[in-house]
C-alpha cells in the first residue's frame, strides 16, 4: 500500500517538527524532566515516520550516516564525557565537571550534557536500526 500523496509531500516538513522537539527535550533535560533518551526516541519516531511515508532508503539518506555509525558516535561521546573527568587525575571516572562561560549571561555547561548528547545519538542509531530491520522484514 502506497502512502497517500499528502503524506509523501508533507513528510519532509513533518520531519523537522519532531527533530526540533527532540532537541528541545534534550536541552530541557538539563534541569527538568527530559533528556537524551526521550529526545532520541522522539527523533527516531520522526525518522521512522519519514521512512513510512517516503520509504526506508529516503530515511537512510536523510540520516546521512548509517544507524550503526550514529550509534558509535554516540557511544564515543558518552565515553568522552566520562574521560573528561580525568582532567583532574585524582577524580574517579565519570566525575562531573562544569564550565560556566560568560556570554552576556552565565551559560552552564557540564559533562552531563555531553553524556546526554551521546545517549541521544545512540538511541537514534539503535532504534532506527531495529525498526528498519522490522520494516524491511515487512516489505519482503
Amino acid at each position, binding site marked *: 500500500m502506497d502512502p497517500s500523496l499528502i503524506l509523501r509531500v508533507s513528510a519532509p516538513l513533518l520531519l523537522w517538527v519532531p527533530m526540533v522537539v527532540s532537541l528541545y527535550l534534550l536541552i530541557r533535560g538539563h534541569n*527538568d524532566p527530559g533528556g537524551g*533518551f526521550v529526545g532520541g526516541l522522539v527523533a527516531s519516531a520522526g525518522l521512522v515516520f519519514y521512512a513510512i511515508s517516503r520509504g526506508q532508503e529516503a530515511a537512510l539518506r536523510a540520516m546521512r550516516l548509517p544507524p550503526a555509525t550514529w550509534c558509535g558516535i554516540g557511544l564515543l561521546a558518552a565515553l568522552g564525557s566520562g574521560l573528561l573527568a580525568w582532567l583532574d587525575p585524582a577524580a574517579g571516572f565519570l566525575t562531573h565537571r562544569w564550565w560556566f562561560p560568560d556570554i552576556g549571561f552565565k551559560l552552564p555547561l557540564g559533562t552531563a550534557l555531553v553524556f546526554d548528547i551521546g545517549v541521544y545519538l545512540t538511541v537514534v542509531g*539503535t532504534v532506527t536500526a*531495529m525498526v528498519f*530491520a*522490522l520494516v524491511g*522484514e*515487512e516489505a*519482503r
Partner: protein
Amino acid sequence: METAFALTIGVLVGAAAYLLLARDLPRALLGFVLLGTAANLSIFAAGRTGTMVPPLVAPGAEALATDAANPLPQALVLTAIVIGFGLAAFALVLVMRAHAEFGSASAEDMDEAERPDDVAAPAAPALNPAAERKEAA
C-alpha cells in the same frame, strides 16, 4: 497503597506466567513484557510509596525536600524499562524473522536446532553450508 501494589504485581506475574507457557511466541513475548512490568513495579514498591512530591531540587534550594519521593527506584525503573524495551524489540525482530522463515510463530513448528544427529547420511559437499542445510531440510 502497598496492598494495591502487591496485588497488581501478583496479577501481572500470574498473567505473565500463563502467557509464557504458550507455544505461540508472540504470546510468550507479551508474557515477558508483563513480567518485566511486574518487576519494575516491585522495585518501585521496594523504594517505599506514599508521597507524591517529585524528587527534584527546587530552584534556589540546596537539597531535596524532606518528604520527596525516593529518586533511586525511579532511576532504576527507568533503566530497567529502557533495557526491557530493547530486549523486547530484539526478540520481536527475531520472532518475525522466524515467522518469515518457518511460516509459523509457534515454537512447536520450529525444530531445526533440535534435530537428532544425522548418523548415516552421505557426506555433503564441504564448505557449502547452504547446500548442506537444504539437503538436511
